[in-house]
């Protein structure tokens, strides 16, 4: 069992159970990002680069603080800075660390056509196994949060692993380890809920009446959660979706269409087989040849009387 984790609860494009003898008996994990404590220092981006040995190309300033401007094969998490003007004219800087949400019901895994390219561990982490990735980009199509990116260099899909390698040996993710304000914390999902509840209570006492936890039910909850000052308007945070769900198109494509499609193909072929043995082939016989010859002679006689 060397190099096997034996705790895979879901495996992409696989119709039988993956090895899952080992459970997450100490509880599923979660990362809680308290955006109200975030100062936008990007230490989490640096820690992610450092731990994962990633170095994105040095780009250009695109007129705002987002740098790099988008997630990518070499940037698995980025800070997104939104300047929000309230109705009373006051300005608020809403900074959100963007990256994989590690959905309990992952759209990427549902969409992936390659066996074992995406797995979900018992602890809740959704991980890409790039050696099995074929580069089709279906995970991008399936993700409700627009997170996975296909690398332009190797045509493999990449995203935040929630530092599955660190978590597997009892460490917290690199971004959590480095966050200087304690805005990112990591633990069991249950503990993170409790911690979030305390933070929300504190925020409410400070005037943020709509403070709340972002753990969207439409994707079964997520293993990366946010504490938001404006939980009633998650879109303010650089387009965090209010009710993320796997698109019905993706559900149809990767749900009913698959078995029904194979059934339709098999049924069509079988219908042909039944017709052949039940009714049989349609053969041209001697009678047809004689009639045809007679007709041909008649027609030629008409043409050349």
């Amino acid at each position: 069992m060397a190099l096997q984790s034996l705790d895979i609860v879901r495996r992409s494009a696989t119709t039988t159970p993956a090895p899952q003898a080992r459970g997450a008996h100490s509880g599923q994990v979660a990362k809680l990002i308290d955006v109200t404590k975030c100062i936008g220092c990007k230490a989490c981006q640096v820690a992610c680069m450092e731990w994962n040995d990633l170095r994105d190309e040095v780009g250009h300033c695109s007129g705002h603080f987002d740098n790099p401007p988008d997630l990518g094969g070499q940037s698995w998490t980025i800070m997104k800075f939104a300047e929000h003007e309230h109705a009373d004219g006051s300005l608020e800087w809403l900074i959100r660390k963007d990256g994989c949400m590690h959905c309990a019901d992952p759209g990427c895994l549902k969409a992936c056509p390659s066996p074992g390219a995406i797995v979900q561990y018992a602890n809740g982490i959704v991980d890409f196994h790039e050696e099995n990735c074929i580069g089709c980009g279906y995970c991008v199509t399936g993700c409700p949060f627009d997170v996975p990116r296909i690398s332009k260099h190797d045509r493999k899909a990449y995203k935040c692993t929630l530092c599955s390698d660190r978590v597997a040996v009892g460490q917290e993710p690199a971004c959590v380890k480095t966050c200087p304000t304690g805005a990112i914390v990591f633990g069991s999902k249950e503990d993170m809920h409790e911690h979030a509840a305390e933070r929300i209570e504190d925020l409410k006492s400070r005037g943020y009446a709509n403070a709340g936890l972002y753990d969207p039910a439409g994707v079964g909850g997520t293993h990366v959660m946010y504490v938001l000052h404006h939980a009633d308007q998650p879109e303010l945070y650089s387009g965090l979706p209010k009710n993320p769900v796997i698109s019905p198109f993706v559900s149809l494509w990767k749900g009913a269409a698959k078995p029904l499609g194979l059934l339709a193909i098999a049924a069509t072929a079988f219908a042909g087989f039944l017709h052949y043995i039940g009714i049989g082939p349609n053969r041209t016989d001697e009678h047809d040849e004689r009639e045809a010859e007679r007709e041909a002679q008649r027609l030629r006689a008409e043409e050349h009387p």
Partner: protein
Amino acid sequence: MNREHDREIVRYRAPTRINHWIVAISFVLAALSGLALFHPALFPLASLFGGGPWTRILHPFIGVVMVVAFVLLAARMWRDNRIDARDRAWLRNVGDVIHNREENLPEVGRFNGGQKLLFWVLVTCVLVLLLSGLVIWRAYFSQWFPIGAIRLSAVAHALFGLILVCSIIVHIYAAIWVKGSLRAMTEGKVSYGWAWRHHRAWFREVVSARRRAD
């Protein structure tokens, strides 16, 4: 000319036959590689193309070859595939078709109602597969389209691919069912009797030299 040869009609000339088989071969390759990505049970088909990444790389290029060849073939065929009242009557009597009772059916021109229906189903499928395929061709085109269009295209590509595969199964079976048809597309010729039995109006036109054989 011997008498045997004399009693044959050219149904498809060599350029048409070659064109047809380029479409056929590229369809089979596109279908096998597409099915590999459609259902996990069929993913092993990817081995035929050198594995998953090669299947992903090759499938759209094979599809483009198929579309180009199909357009050329359809351009040769479309005039003979316009559906008229006689074809609708033929299609209404599909029971007689299935039971090989052709004597009960209206006379058929170069193509029968079923073949014409298939032709237009194929035209529709190929068009939808081309457009949706470009949208989900991640390496070159997907970045130009919004995510909603990509998701719709993914499901449309799968559904019309399935319709195409099922339609071609019907097409292949028809060639097995109606003896002498396959030879028309391999050697190009059919017997007088075959033409008289299955495509009598076309037979009359060709024999009386009102239209050239093709």
